[in-house]
């Protein structure tokens, strides 16, 4: 002890506190272990003191504005002391301020309420050093990031080191290099790889892997029977050559690039031509564009020598972020946009979280705050100021291209970008010189000024060149890891966007480096990398292992790859597979995205009703999911339920959840039911094509299995399938019967059923002496429709249509009003018996239009325009042509969750996508357009029924038939194909079950 306490004896009285602190923390006891005074050897400093200072003190006590004015990175700084005076008291070393504050636990300061006081051993170390006069090796400067320690990575962190091509460890003959690395790790843990998966499993796995859609039964069987020893390689090449490959793999990149078609925030404006970027990615992958070019074009496609339309489209990468046209403070917002660009670029290409260094040096990685601003300077001269007109981008003139969502610098010589203390705009520290980050000292490079006359700063190009420098180890490791991850489900580094200290360490570091160097020697060809991986035994092994249970104990996470990982289909593959199974999948590539049908309930979340979501026509919705339009404020629920990632931030790996809402979607969502029904029709239609089975039902079951699961059913499954068909036929028949017999109640259950009558019991006459007429609601809650203005009342005509009464509207100001709301949602059926006597101009039967209330484009109405064009709201302005215009008709307009239809006399005139997003809280009128004071009906209206749902066709038809008899209007007889037979629906039910099965959802 007590070389130390001898000195303490001389302490003045005020040191007692210090002494007791020492005793409390047990420092003295520990000190007994020390045998000798610290030597002034530099090695001692490097071994004991430098790590301590770096780990505990330097985070704050460094740089141009060190905490308390004390810089602890150099001898000069230490000697100079801080705001409170000397750090080391050269007379009374033991009273040194530095030591006192540490021993008292004041320093390092507590964090989140937790003391950061130094452990006793470190306190001892520090005290010994100070008592020895705090010797500091000459010219030694401490670098916060010089070495990795237990709390953060230094510049010696593994991912920052050069890639040294390792030799595959096992030299066995003909062993695939990947297997050599993997087998070596398995050997070390006494694990055996799983056996190779069977050929049928492999071919399905490969199709999903490369194309994202399953093989057909025939494709599976043809591969299974292929005796060619090179069959596997040939299949890989064939699939890599398919355009479907790019459509599958581009989606992964779009996640990384935070792709969406709109800006987000209040107005959530469309990002015009974002889809061209998406198509560029698909094409780049299909053409196997070398990865360095892929990077350079996205970051600097406008700056490269041979810039062209395509490379400028690639810069859309920089335009895809969210964009707020009304930020709280536009000045501050520029810095938020910089962060988006820094973050997306650095996590996409480098696997580094540089954004964490916006306010201070990175907490965990060798990234200084200055690095953040160096990196950001590449984007500083771009359109990061909020210019509403151009949606946060350059104008067409600035970009030099029309109809491109691209990026370019706005000025070639921007104002300096300052490092901001704590990231706060009002605390600029110093102008940052554009340069690479400093994390890899051997690669650190200052960026040059642009050549004279340049329109841009050339900083993005220099950044891209730095990223793609052959010696940049991160860029290559990161992409190789991404590719591995999408083949295997998990990466070698399982945090694909983060290769820093907080990342998951690589499972096979040597393999990662070997792949990286192989990738470089292949000319950065992604397709070559795919081939390399797919031909390995590691990829081809079974997802089942005979020793699974015991191996799970050793390596539950399968980090050594002793088996393949079973994977659930992602949202896109699932949707595409259902379309593929039903034979409906459209392979139409490129172009603007389609808008998926979104249920009305999900649309309620939109604030801006004017930005109506109008789903695309059904045939466009049959395209692959990568072509789905993604609106940030309204992502399609079916996709998010299956873990489509939020497109705000770069996403390297999607979540993989198992939740009951997924089951609900697959059981009940109409998309799934439509695919099942289509598939059932397809199977029934293919009757002639396959006569191998003895009965129809057998054949159907067999076909269902083949088309959904690409294999025939087993005998047992066949029996189950047959039983299911039989049970469902009975149950569906029963249900249909119940619906049919329930018609009376359903029919008498419209929310509005208007029949003509004399105005208030014959007492009123219109001005010309004829009887004024109105409607009487005979549905639940009867009431009389009113019109206070006598001149505006229609006349009652007792025998007009088929001898039945009707109201005659003059076409000149006559109409009726219904106060209040009728419908809660736009799902409805409107049936009118009427006769048109006009033949031109807009004229309405029923409407809730009210411009002042804000529904000028979102009202619901039914009427005619021109000679005989039917209008069913503004969303369906051409809803068919009325036939036999001079005769009375029964006009039915139905609007469901998926489609809208118009029938005349039971004959289908129009079928379109569902009408959505209507404003329904305004009053209704009959015979005019809302409160517009015009568009009057001229002719007769005899009866109107409104239902608050889309009636099933049988019910609608039954009502039309009854009306037809009453008004002597001939309705089209029901045709057989319009009502689905129980046989068809039972088969659809079977198909749906198969599409819900784990076998369908998972790839072995």
């Amino acid at each position, binding site marked *: 002890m007590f070389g130390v306490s001898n000195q303490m004896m001389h302490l003045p009285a005020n040191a007692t506190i210090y002494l007791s602190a020492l005793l409390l923390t047990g420092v003295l006891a520990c000190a007994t272990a020390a045998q000798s005074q610290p030597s002034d050897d530099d090695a001692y400093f490097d071994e004991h003191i430098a790590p301590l200072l770096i780990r505990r003190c330097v985070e704050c006590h460094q740089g141009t504005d060190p905490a308390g004015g004390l810089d602890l990175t150099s001898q000069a700084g230490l000697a100079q002391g801080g705001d409170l005076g000397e750090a080391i008291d050269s007379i009374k070393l033991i009273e040194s301020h530095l030591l006192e504050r540490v021993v008292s636990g004041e320093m390092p300061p507590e964090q*989140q*309420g937790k003391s950061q006081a130094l452990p006793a051993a470190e306190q001892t170390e520090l005290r010994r050093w100070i008592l020895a006069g705090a010797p500091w090796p000459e010219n030694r400067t401490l670098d916060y990031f010089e070495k990795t320690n*237990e709390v953060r990575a230094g510049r010696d962190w593994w991912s920052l080191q050069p890639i040294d091509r390792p030799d595959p460890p096992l030299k066995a003959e003909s062993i695939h290099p990947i297997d050599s690395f993997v087998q070596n790790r398995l050997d070390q843990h006494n694990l055996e790889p799983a056996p190779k998966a069977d050929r049928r499993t492999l071919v399905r796995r490969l199709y999903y892997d490369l194309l994202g859609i399953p093989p057909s039964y025939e494709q599976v069987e043809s591969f299974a029977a292929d005796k060619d020893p090179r069959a596997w390689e040939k299949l890989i090449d064939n699939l890599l050559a398919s355009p479907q490959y790019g459509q599958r793999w581009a989606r992964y990149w779009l996640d990384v690039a935070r792709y969406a078609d709109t800006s*987000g*925030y*209040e107005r*959530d404006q469309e990002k015009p031509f974002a889809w061209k970027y998406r198509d560029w990615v698909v094409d780049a992958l299909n053409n196997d564009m070398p990865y360095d070019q892929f990077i350079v074009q996205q970051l600097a496609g406008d700056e490269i020598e041979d810039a062209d339309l395509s490379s400028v489209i690639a810069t859309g990468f920089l335009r895809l972020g*969210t964009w707020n046209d009304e930020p*709280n403070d536009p000045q501050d917002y520029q810095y938020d946009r910089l962060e988006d660009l820094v973050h997306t670029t650095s996590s996409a290409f480098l696997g580094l*979280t540089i954004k*964490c260094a916006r306010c201070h040096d990175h907490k*965990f990685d060798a990234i200084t705050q200055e690095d953040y601003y160096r990196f950001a300077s590449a984007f500083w001269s771009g359109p990061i100021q909020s210019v509403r007109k151009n949606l946060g981008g350059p104008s067409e003139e600035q970009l030099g291209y029309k109809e491109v969502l691209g990026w370019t610098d706005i000025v070639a010589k921007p104002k300096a970008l300052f490092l901001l203390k704590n990231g706060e705009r009002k605390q600029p520290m110093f102008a940052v010189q554009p340069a690479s980050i400093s994390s890899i000292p051997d690669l650190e490079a200052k960026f040059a000024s642009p050549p004279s006359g340049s329109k841009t700063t050339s900083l993005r190009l220099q950044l891209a060149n730095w990223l793609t420098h052959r010696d940049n180890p991160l860029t290559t490791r990161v992409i190789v890891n991404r590719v591995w991850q999408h083949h295997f489900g998990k990466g070698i580094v*399982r945090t694909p*966007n*983060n290769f820093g200290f*907080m990342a998951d360490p690589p499972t096979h570091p040597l393999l990662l480096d070997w792949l990286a160097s192989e990738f470089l020697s292949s000319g950065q060809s992604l397709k070559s990398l795919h081939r390399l991986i797919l031909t390995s035994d590691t990829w081809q092994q079974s*997802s*089942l292992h005979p020793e*699974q*249970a015991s191996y799970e104990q050793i390596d539950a*996470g399968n980090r050594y790859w002793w088996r393949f990982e*079973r994977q659930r289909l992602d949202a896109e593959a699932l949707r595409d597979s259902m379309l593929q199974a039903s034979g409906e999948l459209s392979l139409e590539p490129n172009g603007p995205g389609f808008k998926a049908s979104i249920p009305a*309930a999900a649309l*309620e*979340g*939109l*604030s*801006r009703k004017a930005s109506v979501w109008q789903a695309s026509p059904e045939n466009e919705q049959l395209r692959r999911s990568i072509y789905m339009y993604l609106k940030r*404020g309204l992502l399609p629920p079916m996709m*998010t*339920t299956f*873990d489509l990632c*939020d497109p705000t*931030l770069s996403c390297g790996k999607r*979540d993989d*959840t*198992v*939740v*009951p*809402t*997924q089951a*609900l979607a697959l*059981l*009940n*969502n*109409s998309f799934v*039911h439509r695919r099942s029904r289509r598939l059932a029709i397809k199977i029934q239609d293919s009757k002639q094509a396959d006569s191998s089975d003895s009965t129809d039902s057998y054949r159907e079951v067999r076909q269902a299995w083949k088309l959904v699961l690409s294999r025939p059913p087993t005998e047992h499954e066949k029996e189950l*399938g047959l039983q*299911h068909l039989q049970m*469902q036929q009975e*149950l569906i028949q*029963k249900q249909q019967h119940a619906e049919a017999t329930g018609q009376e109640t359903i029919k008498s259950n419209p929310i509005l059923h208007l029949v003509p009558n004399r105005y208030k019991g014959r007492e009123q006459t219109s001005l010309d002496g004829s009887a004024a007429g109105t409607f009487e609601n005979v549905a639940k809650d009867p009431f009389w429709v009113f019109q206070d203005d006598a001149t505006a009342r229609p006349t009652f005509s007792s025998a007009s249509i088929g001898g039945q009464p009707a109201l005659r509207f003059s076409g000149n100001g006559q109409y009726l009003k219904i106060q209040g709301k009728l419908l809660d949602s736009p799902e409805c059926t409107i049936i009118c018996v009427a006769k048109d006597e006009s033949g031109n101009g807009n004229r309405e039967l029923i409407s809730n239009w009210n411009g002042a209330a804000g529904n000028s484009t979102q009202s619901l109405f039914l009427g005619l325009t021109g000679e005989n064009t039917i209008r069913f709201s503004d969303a369906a302005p051409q809803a068919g042509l009325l036939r036999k215009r001079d005769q009375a008709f029964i006009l039915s307009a139905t609007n469901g969750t998926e489609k809208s239809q118009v029938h005349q006399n039971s004959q289908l005139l129009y079928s379109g996508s569902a009408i959505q997003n209507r404003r329904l809280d305004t009053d209704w009128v009959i015979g005019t357009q809302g409160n517009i004071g015009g568009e009057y009906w001229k002719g007769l209206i005899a009866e109107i029924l409104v239902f608050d749902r889309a009636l099933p066709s049988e019910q609608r038809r039954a009502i039309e038939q009854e009306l037809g008899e009453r008004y002597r209007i001939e309705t089209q007889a029901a045709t057989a194909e319009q009502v*689905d037979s129980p046989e068809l*629906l039972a088969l659809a*039910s079977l198909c749906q*079950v198969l599409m819900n*099965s*784990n*076998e369908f959802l*998972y790839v072995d």
Partner: protein
Amino acid sequence: MPPNLFPCRQNRREFVWQMGCGFAGLALTDLLCQDQFFSDIQAGESSAGLLPAPHFAPRAKSCIFLTMNGAPSQVDTFDYKPELEKYAGKQLPGDKEYINSGGRKIGYLTPAFRKFRSGGESGLLVSDYFPKLRQHADKLCVINSCHTDSHAHGSALVAMNTGKTLIGRPSLGSWSVYGLGSENEDLPGYVVMLDKRGGPISGQPNWSSGFMPGTYSGTLFRPSGDPILDLRGPEYISRDAQREQLNLLDQLNAKHFAERPGGQELAARIKSYELAFRMQSSTPEAVDLEQESQSTLDMYGVGKRPTNEYGRNCLIARRLVERGVRFIQLYSGGGHLEETWDAHAGIESNHGTHAPEVDQPIAALLTDLQQRGLLDETLVVWGGEFGRMPFSEGKNAPGRNHNPYGYSMWLAGAGVRGGINYGSTDELGFEAVENKVHLSDLHATILYIMGLDHEHLTYFHQGRKESLTDVRGRVVKSLLG
């Protein structure tokens, strides 16, 4: 390497929920627990393995956030400023700096449009916009010194819900469910009910789970019929027929599973179908007000104008609280401008429309919760995304512009101190000056009341431990009894 972290640096809470335990699903956790997957239980987390444990004893099991979308005016509702009468017609003193949101006309100081009166034994002042709520004055803990980070609806709403003005982060409800789980596996843990007039500006990101799994997202509930999506298939599939489908599915999946031993995700999915089948009846039941007595319906104003809609939502909120739903958010006002509390055109015309829609329903909710003994364990929060200016938008103009510098919100239930005003704005009600409560402080306090420590409730994302309050936020303990 930091201790106690699972592969990929997820803590157990993160891991469990990622594997599917957000919405209703405890399936996989069950299995994993049976397999003793979690042998290493961390401090602060439940060893039962089903629900993550709170950090400390929770005061509230559930939270109902009554969101007054569009921003009510504090000086007309809960922040009485007699000085405004004195200075009426004068301009705001020139030394006050503020952003004039939307570049509107700057008018003159204008006193409250309706009279303030004291309520309850506490004598808390509440204006005549909320006469029924005033009867509950002794339950209200009014915070008069709120301030936030944006003057624009879009970003301020997102901030109110997620802590930051930039979209893409998990919302308060998501954090609550992430931290505490849901006690009813048949219902979502975080329910959002919108105003019929539309959603809030910025839409989905307001109830998004951001970078957390989608399981934590708010689920939109419709107030009648099927509250959530995909509860019913086509009519020809009766319940019996669907049962038949599930029977076949079970048989196929059972065989598939048997051939794939150890396939935990397969087992979890099999179980998820049973949950889904049950949810088809349990979720509509939760919103089925037929089960409520007429006197209850009358108390909430259900079936009457103008209280019908918010009344229904408040009543449903109580039913959801009874069923263990963790976080319920009810929007009043939807769409834009006068459809919300955004009273540019006139305080009286606007608040005179919206306040009567919610006054009786909210009062009924407080009464009902108390009568059922639920108020002690339910935190009720009321407020908008910011406040409004004490001055008009022009000479004799009756409206007020946005004001993020000072506004009022109130808490009730869960043992918060009732009948008090906490903090204050300046004499004109322009900015918070005393005991200021930043939005993040409010968030920290709400989490605290629910048993969560805002500094330790973190989710590791892209190199950083993210939290609701980030580097800000402090628990305002003076609000708690």
